[in-house]
Each structure stands twice: as structure tokens, then as C-alpha cells.
């Protein structure tokens, strides 16, 4: 039994157990939920440490035939692309479970749904079978709607529920169509992703087939990731969601679509990808700039955070769209980093809401004084949000910029950098200024700061951000080998691509060689050759 199975099965089993626990045994309910998520987090960390970067194929694999006639099998495994995501998902789930103390009503149902969410999405990330990949994500998605509907906050709760349900269902179903179409048109008659990739590599799909399937996947997954202009569900939904839900959804579930693009769409449909990625590169500017501007206008902290998390998705899309190793590596790093960050910000805003009863920025102010820890954490989160070094986000974003610079005409990268550095800076500092700085209203004079136990989730997430921000190699060394497998089919294309602007690189490489030794010279020489 693979460790992966344990990682995502424990929360589900716990959810099943909770069904039979009477609703008034609150302590037991919480303990079970925490224990399960903790277990999966510990297992995920172990898995992450045991993972051997660059080893060919998948690790911790397990395969059980499921529906033979359709070629569906239960197949889990990790490579560099999803190992980080699984770790992130497990950590965030645990943090979310910890943050669920803010839920006072119908705890039993809440914890059950929360466990379903975390277990399902971890399974989705772990699974190497198209069917289970989709199945488990959808399984994790449904509780989101119910949680927002039942435990949501704010007067637009119902509308938010309606909208998020509508959008995400459309997205998921489009993706489903795309996956089925992929399965049919590839002709491999299996849902097993590695087999599919191998098969398609051997006998590629026709251009028509690709151009039919790829948009379905792109926009299906895109809607799930709030790709501009299909984003309007996200801020509203997160604004009215209870914070644990927002944490898991914005942090983990949202990454599913991106992961799907990288894992499934890119390796199988190179030609279509080329055609669509240019479009995507402009759409993601919509995320980065447009949503950034929208975020500047927000008067509600949660809406601002929601918008900013939508804007961050733009960087991932940009990295994916660049279709080169640097960009995709960066994209994956941003996915992981943003997972932690989004969870952190929503947890913090949840705390503030719980203490002050409002997230309307005009009513807040000067919270750094009473809530010293929360305030500091929020400042850190804001800084991470506008891509400050030291946090994992910076690593990912800067890598994405390098990838995009290599792939696209300069203007795209220029605008993206503007969005990241300037616009991000503006709305984040505005938020800090209005919420944390300035004179504190008297009614907030003696709010109680987070107690030691409640500091834990925030600290956990911050530590994660710092660790990957200081030692990005922990992630990149695992990502690069497998990402390079994916981009390898794009290399001839990138030569054709708009990327031959530097004759001097070879020269540079030789100069470099004198300083950095022959190995480095070789690398740069290669890049130079690729770049021409």
C-alpha cells in the first residue's frame, strides 16, 4: 500500500468515522479531524523527504485495476511536479483543521466536509489516472459549495454560493468533457496518464483532435483557476466562505486546474498548446493587471485578498504559457508558494473577522497594536503577496519572469513585472496601511491576540513560506527533471519560437567559462544554442 494512499485516505476514513460520532462530542470530533490531517501531513513530509529527485518514472507508485472495460485503474504516484503540491496540500489541510475552531455551529458536518475536501484533493493530486484525477477533485469540490452556503458569512452569501457553484461546475464539466474527449481521441483506450502520454508520444493526435480537446481543457481548468475573464466567482466566494474553506479551496483545490494543464494538456497536445499558449499569455495579463487594479479598489479585506489570489494565478498561467523549463518550474513553485500564502492570508482575515466582526477596511485600523502577532503575520503575508524575497512566492515569480522573458515578446513580461512589483505593492501596502497602521479605534483597543495554540497554524504556514523562500532548491531540484521531460517535446518548437535575440550568448558563455568553470560553460553554451 503506497504511502500516497495513506496520505489521502486517512482524512476520508476520518470523515467516515465522524459520521458515526454523536454531534455533541465536540472534542472527539475535533481531535479525530486534527489527528487525521496531522497524520497525512506527517506522512506527506516523510514522503517529500524520501522523494529522490530526477529518478526516472514515478515514485511511491501503486496500481489497482478498477474498471477493466474502460481501462480505468486506481493508480497513484508522484514525480517532481506533484510532490510539492501534495506536501503543500497536506500542510494547508492541517492548518485549516486547526483554524476551524472559528466554526461554532454544526461542527460535525463541517469537519466531515473539511476532511472530504482535503482528502479528496490530495488524492486528486496523487492520482495518475484521468478518471480518479477528476473524480477525486470533484468529490472535494462539492463540499465547498455546501460549506459556503451553510457556514458562509456576509449578506451576499447566497449569491456567492450560486455563482461559485455555477462557475466551478461549468469549469469542472468542461474539463470532464475534455478529459473524455482526450481519452477517446487519443485512441489509447486507457485512462492511465503515463500510458496515455507514452501512447500519444508514439502516435500523436491529429491537429483537429488537439484543437478540439485542448481548449476544453484549457478553459475548463481555466475556469477552475479563475482565469480572466472567468474569475468573478473567486473573490466573492472567498469573501463569503468560512476561512478554513477559503484556505483549502484557494490554497489547494485551485491548483488542480493548473496541475492538470501541466500534467495532462501540455505533454499530450504540443501543437495545440503552442497555438493556445500565445492567447493564454495575454489572458493571464488580464489576471495580473486587471485583477490587480480591481483589487486596488476593494474596500473589504477579504475581497482584496481574494482578488490578489486571483491575480497571483496569472503568474502561474504565465509560467505555463511560456512552455519552457524555467517558466514551468517557476509556475510549479508559485503554485506551492501561493498555496501556503493564500491559506495564511485567509486564516488571518478569518481571525480578524472573528475578533472585530467586520472586514470592512474603513472600519478597521491600527490593529497592529492590539493584535501584535496577527498584525505582524499579516504584514508578512502582504509582503509575500507583493513578491518580497525571502518568501517562496518571490522565487516562483522571478523564475516565471525569466521564463516568460525567454518565451514572449518583451511587452508581456514588462507588464507582468509592473503588475507584480508596482500594482501588487500598491494594494498590499494600502491594505496594511488601512487595516494595521494608523490610529486604532477605541473599540479595538483591547482585542485579544492569538493564544499560543492558535498561533500555531499561522506559524506553520509562515515557516513553510520561509523555508521554500530561502532554499528554493528543495523544490526546484525535484521539479526540474520531470518538468524537463514535459518541455522536451517543445524544444524544437521553442527554437522556432520568438526567442532568438541574443547572438552574444555564446561569447558570454566562453567568458563565463573562465570564471565559472567548464561545467557552467557547458550549461550556458547549451542555453545559448537553444536560444538561437
Amino acid at each position, binding site marked *: 500500500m503506497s504511502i500516497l494512499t495513506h496520505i489521502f485516505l486517512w482524512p476520508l476514513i476520518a470523515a467516515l468515522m465522524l459520521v458515526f460520532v454523536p454531534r455533541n462530542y465536540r472534542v472527539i470530533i475535533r481531535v479525530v479531524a486534527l489527528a487525521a490531517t496531522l497524520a497525512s501531513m506527517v506522512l506527506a513530509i516523510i514522503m517529500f523527504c524520501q522523494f529522490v529527485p530526477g529518478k526516472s518514472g514515478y515514485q511511491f507508485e501503486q496500481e489497482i485495476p478498477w474498471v477493466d472495460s474502460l481501462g480505468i485503474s486506481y493508480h497513484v504516484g508522484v514525480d517532481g511536479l506533484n510532490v510539492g503540491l501534495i506536501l503543500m496540500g497536506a500542510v494547508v489541510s492541517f492548518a485549516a483543521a486547526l483554524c476551524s475552531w472559528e466554526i461554532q455551529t454544526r461542527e460535525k458536518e463541517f469537519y466531515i466536509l473539511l476532511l472530504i475536501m482535503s482528502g479528496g484533493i490530495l488524492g486528486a493530486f496523487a492520482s495518475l489516472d484521468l478518471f480518479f484525477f477528476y473524480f477525486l477533485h470533484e468529490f472535494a469540490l462539492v463540499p465547498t459549495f455546501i460549506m459556503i452556503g451553510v457556514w458562509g458569512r456576509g449578506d451576499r452569501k447566497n449569491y456567492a454560493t*450560486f*455563482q461559485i457553484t*455555477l462557475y466551478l461546475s461549468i469549469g469542472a464539466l468542461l474539463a470532464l468533457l475534455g478529459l473524455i474527449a482526450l481519452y477517446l481521441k487519443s485512441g489509447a483506450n486507457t485512462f492511465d496518464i503515463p500510458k496515455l502520454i507514452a501512447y500519444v508520444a508514439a502516435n500523436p493526435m491529429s491537429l483537429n483532435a488537439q484543437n478540439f480537446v485542448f481548449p476544453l481543457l484549457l478553459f475548463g481548468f481555466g475556469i477552475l483557476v479563475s482565469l480572466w*475573464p472567468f*474569475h*468573478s466567482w473567486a473573490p466573492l466566494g472567498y469573501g463569503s466562505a468560512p476561512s478554513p474553506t477559503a484556505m483549502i479551496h484557494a490554497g489547494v483545490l485551485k491548483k488542480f486546474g493548473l496541475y492538470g494543464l501541466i500534467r495532462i494538456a501540455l505533454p499530450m497536445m504540443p501543437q495545440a498548446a503552442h497555438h493556445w499558449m500565445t492567447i493564454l499569455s495575454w489572458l493571464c495579463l488580464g489576471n495580473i493587471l486587471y485583477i490587480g*487594479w*480591481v483589487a*486596488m*479598489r476593494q474596500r473589504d479585506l477579504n475581497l482584496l485578498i481574494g482578488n490578489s489570489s486571483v491575480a497571483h494565478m496569472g503568474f502561474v498561467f504565465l509560467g505555463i504559457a511560456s512552455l519552457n*523549463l*524555467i517558466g514551468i*518550474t517557476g509556475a510549479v513553485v508559485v503554485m506551492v508558494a501561493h498555496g501556503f500564502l493564500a491559506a495564511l492570508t485567509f486564516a488571518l482575515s478569518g481571525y480578524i473577522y472573528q475578533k472585530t466582526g467586520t472586514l470592512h477596511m474603513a472600519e478597521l485600523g*491600527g490593529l497592529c*497594536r492590539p493584535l501584535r502577532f496577527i498584525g*505582524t503575520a499579516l*504584514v508578512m503575508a502582504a509582503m509575500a503577496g507583493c513578491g*518580497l*524575497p*525571502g518568501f517562496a512566492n*518571490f522565487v516562483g515569480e*522571478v*523564475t516565471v*519572469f*525569466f521564463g516568460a522573458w*525567454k518565451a514572449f515578446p518583451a511587452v508581456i513580461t514588462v507588464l507582468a*513585472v509592473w503588475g507584480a*512589483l*508596482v500594482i501588487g*505593492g500598491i494594494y498590499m*501596502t*494600502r491594505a*496594511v496601511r488601512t487595516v*494595521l*497602521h*494608523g490610529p486604532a479605534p477605541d473599540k479595538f483597543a483591547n482585542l485579544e491576540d492569538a493564544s499560543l495554540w492558535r498561533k500555531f497554524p499561522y506559524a506553520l504556514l509562515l515557516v513553510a513560506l520561509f523555508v521554500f523562500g530561502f532554499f*528554493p*532548491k528543495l523544490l*526546484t531540484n525535484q521539479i*526540474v527533471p520531470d518538468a*524537463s521531460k514535459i518541455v522536451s517535446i517543445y524544444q524544437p518548437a521553442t527554437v522556432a519560437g520568438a526567442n532568438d535575440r*541574443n*547572438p*552574444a*550568448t555564446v*561569447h*558570454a*558563455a566562453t*567568458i*563565463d567559462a573562465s*570564471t*565559472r*568553470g567548464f*561545467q557552467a560553460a557547458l*550549461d*550556458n553554451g547549451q*542555453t*545559448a544554442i*537553444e*536560444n538561437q
Partner: protein
Amino acid sequence: MKLELLPWLVLFMPLAAAGIITLFTLHFKTISSFISIGAILAGFVLTIVFISANGWQPAAGQGYGGQPVPAGESICQWLSADGLNIDFGIKLDPLSLMMMLIVTGVGGAIHVYSRGYMADDTGMSRFFAELSLFTFSMLGIVMANNFIEMFIFWELVGVSSYLLIGFWFEKPSAGDAAKKAFIVNRLGDFGFLLGILMIWQWLGTLNFSGLQGPEALGPYATIAGLLIFCGAVGKSAQFPLHVWLPDAMEGPTPVSALIHAATMVAAGVYMLCRIFIVLNPPALEVVAYIGGFTALLAAVIAVQQNDIKRIIAYSTLSQLGYMVMSVGLNGRTPAMFHLTTHAFFKALLFLSAGSVIIGLHHEQDIWKMGGLKRKMPITFWTFLVGGLALSAIWPFSGFYSKDSILGNALARHDFEGSLLFAVGVFVAALTTFYIFRLFFVVFCGKEKSETASHAHESPIVMTGPLVILAIFAFVGGLIGVEGVYNRIFMPHPGGLETSASFASELFGPFARSPLASGLGTLAFIIGLGCAYALYAKADKDPLPEKLGGLATAMKNKFYFDEIYEATFVRAHDFIAAVCDGIDRWVVEGFCIGSIRGGADLTGRALRFLQTGNLQTYAFLFVIGVAVALYVILK
């Protein structure tokens, strides 16, 4: 122990200090302060030890993967994906070592000073944590061996200055100032990052050791150079991004001294010298003019400011302008030399001003001071030394550095050089004028307010650093700083002037460029004269009625803030409003609304088929059959 480790230690001790303070000793002010001060002073000592052991030009450090690394670097890989190799390394050469000395030395003095200055502030632990964080980031900039690493610390100093400016975050003005500083710096970094991207694209490497002349950058050399320069413009508050620095005075005075006078704002100049090789003549020209203009503009504005710290802030701007100008005029040694001396005397000036402010219980308007000579003698003298050094009169340190800048400008014998030389001389006069305006108004004459009359001298913990800095501000020009910089900037025998006798050193400038030094001295005399004539006895500013509109324009900093408010900020807000409107009304309102309403209406309409009347049902049934028949059989 291995000496190679010392620099790493110097770099990371402040970070450790910051971490320890935040995590453990937030509630113990004294311990926190000692940790922080200890970290930076230890850094100072270790740096000296290292230099004395390895000399100014250390041998090869170590790299990863057994690769040979250039002299003085020790590297470890930070991130690598195919074309992109980002190292984390430290580069030790005279430039960085000297900067380390300045940062740790001056910084150390300021740390000690803050111990007294912040003594009665509840947030002192936080203050020292952030101060240590800043020290770490600044050292990082200095020691960085590649662009990304420098950019990382570049951003980190930005954020630590953000935190320190906003230290008293309850004050709305402080919060706003912090925000402004951050965003304006971000504008600069925007260009910087793009410049880095271009460098990487063309040179395929990010390491400073891999840099090559502008010809390697092909047609884009100028753009790349200027983009990089943007970073310096933001950080060193050059025109047009100079607006944040005066506001930054909202922070505690030690912060102004350390970050906004001695070290951080100088980082831009340092960076320019570091990557000087990639700048091509056109770019350099722009750099020079920007610098010169900033120097002039700031000096003019300074003449009409009444806030003691703002005056010094503007003088900082104009001195930075000197340095940038000098870099643009291909004089890196003068620039760095002036940076060093400026660090001494500007820190000194700020700290003295801080001591005045403390003495007057946070009174900052110079027209409410006066007659402090008797009440705060030490401060008086130290301030005088600082002022003389700033206004560059022989034999104060400022004289040598500024003179070498002017001399360098004159030595070019071209229009650009001469023009900027003239500007420099004029600015020198202005400098003397405004600093002594300040000096006379604050220290001489009679008390102009109640608080002034009850002023008192500051404790030793504050005056001590003042004295030390005063000494350096005095002799700073003669301790061979210039020689150290010459080691890398012009490594020909003529550069090594340490061998020369002290006397020739002392009068060197007059021998080298009599014109420059002569005019400089003349400028000083004129400035001092005017200042004395106007302000020695004045208890209100006589200039406004003399200058009229110009004075008000100067007072209002030539309305730069207002202009930016009206253009940049407005534009962003407008676009934001538009996007928000689209989002709210078109996407959410119209699209979603119509889909939802459409489905709902169709549903309600269709239900009216179900009249409940059997006959209608039968009728519909028959219609259905009829249609089907018609469709199928035509």
C-alpha cells in the same frame, strides 16, 4: 577557525539577532538592544580582523561542485533551471570590504545611539529587530556576487526601511510615508528587474564576475544600462523618484541617519560602481545629468525648508546627486570616496539633529529653536563639525571627497564636465548657505520658543557616538579611503597614493586641481557670508519677501508631490475604478445575471404548458405527434 567563514558570519549575525529578538526577547527591551548592537559591532570587529588577515584583496574562496571561483568569492547554488543559474555567494574586494566597514562601523555607532534615543519607547525591541534586519539586508547588497542576490537584498532593504519609516505606525503621516517610500522604491525596482532580465538574456549569466562591456549587449546596451540605473534612481532617491526621501523623515531619527543618510540611499551609487562596466557612454551621460540636476534641485529646495530633519534630508539628496553625477562622469573613486565621507558627516548631522530633537521633546521646527549653543554644547560642536564637513571646507573630510568629484569633472575638459562642474560649485555654495542657515537659526541667536529655553544636553550614550562620528567626519578624508577604492577602480601604480607623505596627502587637492579646490573654498565663503548676513540674528525667515513666488515654490518642493498625485496615482486609481466597474456591472452583473435570469424565466414560462387540463395535454400530445410526423415524413 577558517577565515573564509568570517564574512558569512558578519552577514548572518544581524539576521540571527533579528530572528532571536522577534521570536524570544520581544518583551525584554534591554536584552534585545544588546543582542542587536552586539551583532553589528561584532560584525565590525570581524570585518577588521578579516581585512587585517586577508588584506583588501582576498584569495579565491570556495564554490560548489568543485568549480573554480573568481578571487574573493565563495558561492553556493541557490536555484538552477536550465538557462537560469542563480547563486548565493559573497564577493569580497576592496569595494565591498570598505562598504562592510562603513555599514557595520557607522551602523554600529548609530545602533548605540538609538539605545539612548529610543530608551523610552515601548517598541524598542521591535525597533532593534528591524534595525538588525536592515543591517543584514544592507550587508547582503554589499556582498552580493550576482544580480538576483543583489535584487533580493535590494528589496529587503526596501522593506526594512518601510518597516522603520512606519515604526510609529499609529501616526497616519508615518504610515503614509512608509507606503510612499515602498511604492516609489518599487517603481525603481521595476526598472532594475527588467534590466537584470536583459542582462541575463544577452550575457547568459547573472554573476558580476561574468559582466562584460556594453558591446556585448548589442543594440540594447543603453536601454539595459538605464533600466539598471532605474534601480539606483529609486533607491538613491534621484530625480524624478526623489519624493519619498523627505517624507521618510517620519521615521525615528537614527533610522534617518542610518538608512536615509549613511547606507541604504548610498546603495544605488554602490550598485552603479559595481556594474559600471555595462554602462555605455550615452547611459553614463544620462546618469551624470540626472545626478547633477538632483544635486541642484535638492539644494535649492533645502534653502526654504524649516523642518530640521527635512533640511538635512534634502542635503542628503543633493549629496547623493553629487555621487551619481560623479559616477556618470566616470569617476567611481570620487563617488565612493564621497559616499564614505558623507556617511560619516551626514550620520553625524542627523544624530546631532536627533539629539536636538530629543532635547526639545520632539520639536522639529527650526524657528522654534535657537540659542542651543549654551544648553547643548557637545551637540553644538559635533553639529558644527558635521556642517563644516558637509560644506566641504579644508581640512574637513567633505573637502577632499567633494573636491575630487569636482576635480574629476573638470578633468574631462568637455562641455558636459564643465557644465556639471559649474553646477557642482554653485550647489556647494548653496549647501554651505542652507546648512549654516540651519546652524545659525538653531544654535545661535536667542530662544525662539518655550521648549527651546528648557532644552538639555543628551545622555552620554548618545553624545558618545556623536563624538566618534565627529572625529571621522573631521579626518575621514585623510585615512586612505580613496587609496582603497583606487585599488580596484584604477589599479595602476599612480593610484596607490598611500605611499605618499601625509603632508602631500593633506594638501593634495590644491596641488592636483587648484581651480576646483579654489572655487570650492570661494563657494564656501560666499555661502557662509550670505547665511551669516541673513540668519545670524534673524528670528523669522527674511528670504520669502526677497524671493517672493520662487520662495513659496521652493518651500513646496516645486510641487512634485502634487504633480505625481495628479498623474501617476490618479491614473492608477482611474484605471482601477474602470476595471472594478466592468467587473461589477458587466461580468458579474450582466453576464451572470442574464444567464441566471434567462434560465429562471424560461423555466417559469415553460411551466405554463402544464395547465393541468387534460385536453391541453392531449392536444400537446397530438401536436407532438403531428410535428414528428411532419419532420420525418415531410
